[in-house]
């Protein structure tokens, strides 16, 4: 098998029979005979049908005979000036969840926030977003939220008034000798000020900060090395060589949106002469960042210390790391040479939670002269401040009965702390437990007072993610429930003089006062505070230059080297990792994130045990212990046993398995409860730091089959080859062409599959050669396409040559697979969430999916992500087969879908070569007016989006589709129409910036470009005319409107040896 062939997974690589069969069926419908539960659950039969028919006709008659139902038009009593019904307003705010930070603009319609966009003014994110930030708006309308303050008496929570709650809590706090506050990282200056006020009122108070996924070793190491307990600011754009030891800096580590934006600046390739950074990832499992690396060095998780020590030895010439495996040694030796050649322009990072390993990393960067160049303290990050050691100490304190009042603010240590059970037990010794949180979780369940907080979209606030960089959080809607901002609760209980409870918006006044005395003086641009504040509120972000100074490195490195973690002798090790969608469970109540596929494993609704694959030397790739996708296996870590589904994963270090954090929540509403397994309880702590791997692990063989295996990797596949009866691989289109044109060749393969161009890829070195190869293939495709009866050129000249002709370009080198676009598309276009069972039946509804392909070595492959959405073909195969003309073409080159015409034959989806059309099998949105059609069908409740509260998130400009119709990407036609209208109203030509699709504006790396093909000077034309440009499946002559860039990796053969 050649190094550059592309495969989507093990089933494709080995030509698995059942898979080949399934790719030929567009929709994998359950076999009625095999799935007996479907029959028993589906109570409808012929007699019922007649009943419904009779009822339907009767009801229609009655309805027709009655009066017109009265609809109301309810205007405002006093219309706010800034709101015009039907026109969206945007407010600058910030998405902050612990250390997660993204400056955003919130799109509101008629006073409801419905969509999050990135804030272009931010010098950190430059308008980029993440899937988490995109999904945050749904959290506002979570039915699981607290609606009232609560008090627990006799093990039952009951609602009480704020006045009663405050009175009771003030009384308890007044009597308490020792008060503790537990929080996650808090990057809000005003919030810290509020806590200070609280501490002043209750001087016994101590604050314990920890992070759901810890970075405390880094903080500790920087304290040791530089005397500054912070995370440095990183500048991946300034680094030519990047080495990351298991730091998922594009997906989850510290500030992924910022880093992705920086990282991609050195990764865009426009031709053979382009410069490209080299990114080497040293890791045990295939992380999202690793999948983007040029080269991965595979190590077992316990080898990480040795690997870092080895690289340190190579760089400094001091030796070390002798116990590392030989392959990794060879790789690291070579990369050390490259690092040394790129002094001051390289960057080494690590996700390790071992202080001494982090000290070594600091020394490597120090020796390489990277401080002040590619990383530094002037713009140090505050996005991780936690120290779980303190939490551990708190547990002992509580156990000793030395704490009488505990306030838990937002955090959930009863779930995400490594010693959650100990924490839970020690809680029983605390008399007063107050939860300040916005929805129930494992910790709030154990408290006796609940002071529910606003969602951040209802709150005032501020943030200082990095030194000298500030941003504002402003409310975009009146609080939906009887909640109160957490800081306001603290200030109320402190009876603070700085907090005027009688003011209209007391916490706003508090923040303004804080900003007036602390921020206003640091600037000279504005003379009045009001001007300064208004400007900050308008822009949402402030500052940008780092305000700190660089530090000197000063620590005993040799001591550190002796204390790195030592490799284990165990044959099997497990690594626990954070995913881009779930975090450590903070996001499990969000159905958009639950249904978002993991970028690498492409699994949804749960954590799947990733096991390595081995080639059997003949034809098959066997999973570890003979495990296969969707098998259930028994996993034993320490004393804990789990039964969980398995997914085979390429690119794992041998003898290593991996499992995601953040699942298996026991108190996360109807969306998150019981999804996956909770691995936090098997995490161990070493020197007060949580370790995210274990060598005390065993895995059984297959013990069963997962009921609803919801991995989407093998759904909707394209470009798989066909096999004839003799088992030969054939190119069916060419065979068919030979038959029709010359009367020779094989018959019977019309419309079958062929050797198709889905991905073009190259290494940077081979680029000229590969470009020529691609050009040749494209010429062949063009030649094939010329033999068509379809007069495309004529259409182009007569129809598309004037006005607009929309097109898109996706840069595969910029796409990091983060799925922000997928979630943005779901939010923008009212795409329904279908739930685990439906996903397992290939019924996921996402309009935009990110296909993941492997290429290169089977043992250690590279990955390419290909965002795939409707290609808006100008010669669209779907349009020709629709019997009712529900899908047809517009003069602007859009492939239009008229839902109300669609009768659900699904011919279009069958005929789509890109497999991007989605069918509403059930009434996922409860748009249907007949309750009988609404699903508790197949015994599964489809709860997502059916509630009136959740429906407030719907975009009013996009139709909510009902059961039985096809839907697909519309190129955000509502945004196109809006952009055109803006240009028309202003009496000017349309510019590319007038129309930005949801996926485009969400992308943190600018991988997606949308525009008018007729604008010859626009960005789109430039990209389309690039030599790197290609069209997926060009040879099928559908004249697609989405083009891609050849994927280039900066992989060198010298690294492979």
């Amino acid at each position, binding site marked *: 098998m050649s190094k550059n062939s592309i495969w989507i997974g093990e089933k494709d690589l080995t030509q698995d029979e059942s898979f080949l069969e399934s790719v030929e069926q567009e929709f994998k419908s359950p076999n009625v005979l095999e799935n007996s539960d479907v029959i028993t659950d589906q109570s409808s039969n012929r007699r019922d049908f007649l009943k419904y028919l009779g009822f339907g006709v009767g009801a229609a008659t009655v309805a*027709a005979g009655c009066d*017109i139902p*009265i*609809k*109301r*038009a*309810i*205007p*405002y*009593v*006093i*219309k706010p000036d800034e709101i*015009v*019904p*039907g*026109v969206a307003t945007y407010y600058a705010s910030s998405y902050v969840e612990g250390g997660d930070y993204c400056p955003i603009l919130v799109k509101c319609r008629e006073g409801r926030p419905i969509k999050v966009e990135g804030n272009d003014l931010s010098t950190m994110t430059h308008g980029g977003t993440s899937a988490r930030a995109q999904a945050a708006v749904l959290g506002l309308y979570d039915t699981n939220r607290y609606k009232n303050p609560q008090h627990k008496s006799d093990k039952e929570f009951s609602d009480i008034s704020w006045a009663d709650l405050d009175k009771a809590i003030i009384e308890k706090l007044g009597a308490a000798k020792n008060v503790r506050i537990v929080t996650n990282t808090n990057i809000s200056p005003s919030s810290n000020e509020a806590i200070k006020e609280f501490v002043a009122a209750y001087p016994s108070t101590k604050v314990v900060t920890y992070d759901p996924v810890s970075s405390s070793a880094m903080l500790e190491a920087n304290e040791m090395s530089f005397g500054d307990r912070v995370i440095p600011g990183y500048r991946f754009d300034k680094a030519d060589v990047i080495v990351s030891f298991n730091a998922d800096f594009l997906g989850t580590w510290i500030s992924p949106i910022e880093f992705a934006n920086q990282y991609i600046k050195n990764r865009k390739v426009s031709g053979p002469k382009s410069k490209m950074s080299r990114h080497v990832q040293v890791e045990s499992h295939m992380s999202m960042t690793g999948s983007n690396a040029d080269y991965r060095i595979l190590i077992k998780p316990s080898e990480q210390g040795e690997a870092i020590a080895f690289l340190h030895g190579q760089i400094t010439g001091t030796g070390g790391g002798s116990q590392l495996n030989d392959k990794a040694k060879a790789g690291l030796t070579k990369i050390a040479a490259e690092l040394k050649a790129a002094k001051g322009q390289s960057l080494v990072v690590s996700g390790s939670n071992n202080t001494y390993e982090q000290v070594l990393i600091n020394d490597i960067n120090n020796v390489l002269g990277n401080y002040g160049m590619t990383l530094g303290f002037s713009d140090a990050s505050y996005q991780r401040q936690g120290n779980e050691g303190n939490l551990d100490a708190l547990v002992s304190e509580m156990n000793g009965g030395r704490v009488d009042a505990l306030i838990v603010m937002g955090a959930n240590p009863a779930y995400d702390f490594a010693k959650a059970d100990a924490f839970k037990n020690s809680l029983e010794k605390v008399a007063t437990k107050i939860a300040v949180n916005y929805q129930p979780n494992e910790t709030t369940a154990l408290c006796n007072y609940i002071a529910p907080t606003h969602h951040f979209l209802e709150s005032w606030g501020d943030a200082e993610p990095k030194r000298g960089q500030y941003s504002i959080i402003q409310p975009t809607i009146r609080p939906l429930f009887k909640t109160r901002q957490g800081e306001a609760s603290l200030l109320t209980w402190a009876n603070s003089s700085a907090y005027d409870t009688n003011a209209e918006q007391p916490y706003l006044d508090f923040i303004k006062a804080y900003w007036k005395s602390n921020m206003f003086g640091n600037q000279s641009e504005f003379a009045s505070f009001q001007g300064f504040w208004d400007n900050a509120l308008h822009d949402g972000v402030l500052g940008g230059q780092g305000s700190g100074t660089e530090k000197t490195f000063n620590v005993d490195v040799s001591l550190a080297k002796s204390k790195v973690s030592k490799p284990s002798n165990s044959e099997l090790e497990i690594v626990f990792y954070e995913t881009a969608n779930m975090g450590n469970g903070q996001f499990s109540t969000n159905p958009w994130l639950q249904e978002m596929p993991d970028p690498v494993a492409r699994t949804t609704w749960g954590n799947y045990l990733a096991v390595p694959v081995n080639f059997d030397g003949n034809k098959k790739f066997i999973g570890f212990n003979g495990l296969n996708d969707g098998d259930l296996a028994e996993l034993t870590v320490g004393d804990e046993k789990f039964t969980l589904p398995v997914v085979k994963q390429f690119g794992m270090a041998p003898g290593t398995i991996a499992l995601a954090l953040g699942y298996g929540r026991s108190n996360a509403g109807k969306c998150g409860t019981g999804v996956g397994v909770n691995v936090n309880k098997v995490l161990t702590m070493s020197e007060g730091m949580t370790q995210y791997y274990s060598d005390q692990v065993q895995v059984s063989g297959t013990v069963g089959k997962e009921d609803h295996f919801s991995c989407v990797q093998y759904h909707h596949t394209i470009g798989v080859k066909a096999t004839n009866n003799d088992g030969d691989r054939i190119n069916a289109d060419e065979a068919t062409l030979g038959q029709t044109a010359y009367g020779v060749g094989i018959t019977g393969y019309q419309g079958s599959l062929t050797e198709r161009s889905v991905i073009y890829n190259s290494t940077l070195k081979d680029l000229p050669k590969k470009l020529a190869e691609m050009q040749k293939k494209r010429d062949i495709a063009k030649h094939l396409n010329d033999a068509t009866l379809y007069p495309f050129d004529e259409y182009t000249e007569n129809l598309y*040559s*004037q*006005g*607009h002709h929309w097109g898109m370009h996706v840069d595969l080198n910029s796409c990091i697979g983060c799925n922000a676009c997928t979630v943005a598309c779901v939010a923008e276009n009212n795409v329904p969430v279908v739930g685990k069972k439906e996903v397992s039946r290939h019924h996921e509804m996402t309009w935009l999916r990110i296909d993941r392909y492997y290429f290169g070595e089977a043992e250690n492959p590279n990955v390419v992500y290909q965002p795939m959405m409707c290609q808006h073909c100008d010669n669209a195969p779907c349009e020709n087969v629709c019997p009712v003309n529900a899908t*047809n073409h*517009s*003069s*602007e080159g*859009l492939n*239009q*879908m*008229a*839902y*109300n*015409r669609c009768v659900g034959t699904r011919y279009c989806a069958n005929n789509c070569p890109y497999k991007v059309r989605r069918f509403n099998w059930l009434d996922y949105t409860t748009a249907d007016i007949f309750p009988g059609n609404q699903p508790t069908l197949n015994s599964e409740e489809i709860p997502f989006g059916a509630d009136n509260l959740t429906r407030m998130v719907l975009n009013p*400009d*996009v*139709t*909510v589709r009902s059961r039985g119709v096809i839907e697909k990407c*519309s190129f955000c*036609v*509502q945004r196109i*129409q809006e952009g*055109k*209208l803006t*240009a*028309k*109203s202003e*009496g*000017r*030509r*349309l510019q590319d910036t007038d129309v930005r699709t949801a996926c485009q504006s969400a992308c943190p790396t600018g991988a997606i470009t949308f525009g*008018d093909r*007729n604008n010859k000077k626009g960005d789109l034309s430039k990209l389309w005319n690039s030599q790197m440009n290609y069209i997926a499946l060009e040879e099928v002559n559908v004249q697609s409107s989405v083009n891609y860039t050849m994927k280039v990796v900066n992989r060198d053969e010298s690294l492979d040896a």
Partner: protein
Amino acid sequence: MIKNSFKSILLTLSIAMLPFLMNGQPSIAEGKTLFKNNCASCHAKNMKSKATGPALGGAVERWTADYPIEDLYSWVRNSQKLVSIGHPRAVQLYNEWNKSVMQPAEFLTDDNIASLFLYIDDVFINGGKKQVVNGESVAEVESETPAWLYYLLFGFLAILALILARITSNLNFIASEKEGGTYERKTLWQTLTSKSVVGFVLFALVLFGGYTTVNNAVNLGRQEGYAPKQPIEFSHETHAGLNKIDCQYCHDGARRSKHSVIPAANTCMNCHKAITVGSKHGTAEITKIFASIGFNPNNNLYIDNYEDLSTEEVEAIYTKWIGDNYLEEADLQELDKEGKRVVADQWNNIYTSLTNDQKTKVQGPIEWVRIHNLPDHVYFNHAQHVTVGKLECQQCHGAVEEMEVMQQHSPLSMGWCINCHRQTEVKFADNAYYNSYEKYHEELKSGDRDAVTVEDIGGLECQKCHY
């Protein structure tokens, strides 16, 4: 000769009539038109209540008591002139009305003003009923096509058909007699139940039934002519027609949003803070706005914490207002039986109009009945049509300025939209946006094309309205 003389007499007569027709004598009808056009925006139509200007009923008597009628006439033509020369009554009135200036109307002749006061007195004394009834009933007779004429025609034709059938039957009978055959004469019953008649009737019924079914099916959900009763008897005729308020003053979304927007109560208050008593319904309707937003017309102030008041407290405020107003109009000191009834009725009406099952409080928004309803899967944008397309509101909504009760003018069906898109020309030359349509511009220049319609730039495509 006779013919000629007849003609000349006619001519002379009409010439003699001409001045009468042109100027005429003072008449109530003329007064009504003049009042509508010149006075109604400031003076109440019932002549009894105060509006922006004083109530006009009895003005002649009030003036002529102390001054000659000419003074009143010159006051009407140009009040400021009279004030400037220091006419005592003029100055007194001017000061009494906060020095607001009445629009001068120098073009009015003495007869015009006499007509005006004839009309004013008529309304003041008789309530103007006689005139209005006459005017309207005449118009109705003219417009109505009598249905009985059709029935008559139908009956006539039916009888004719029967007679013809009898005649044919008789002719057949005679013919067969002549030929010596026997002909059994069909009875009327036999004729009616004959195969051909039954067949024809069935055919006609199926045809008619099918036609009706299809038509009704097509019209399902369409509401052309829909004119529901609204919580407030708001008159577009008064506002848009008589007072010439621009449509977009209230419907301010039309130029910039997809919705034209039903105005908020505070928009109403821009004018109705001053105009507290309606010309037609008095306090009955305008008070509903006050009760919605919390404006106390008794002291011209907004009520603090209005949301928190109980229904009884709200009732007390507005019944006092209605009652006081009644006393003023009726010139009474204490509410009589009629007055009590009026107050109770009006309050009842306010309460039922502003509350429903979901909304139990009088306070809060006025829940209008929505007339123009598009299905959920239709996207319609007012700004596109009003700002870009520069359409008049009336093109789709009809002559709203003549509608006392608002109704749906157009079918709002897809066919109706499409037709307009086929016929309407795009304002191609005036908007730089359309410069990207280079081919059309060239064709227009060369004369190969007369115009570009909405259809030509894709106005019939599905995803222009459905997404």
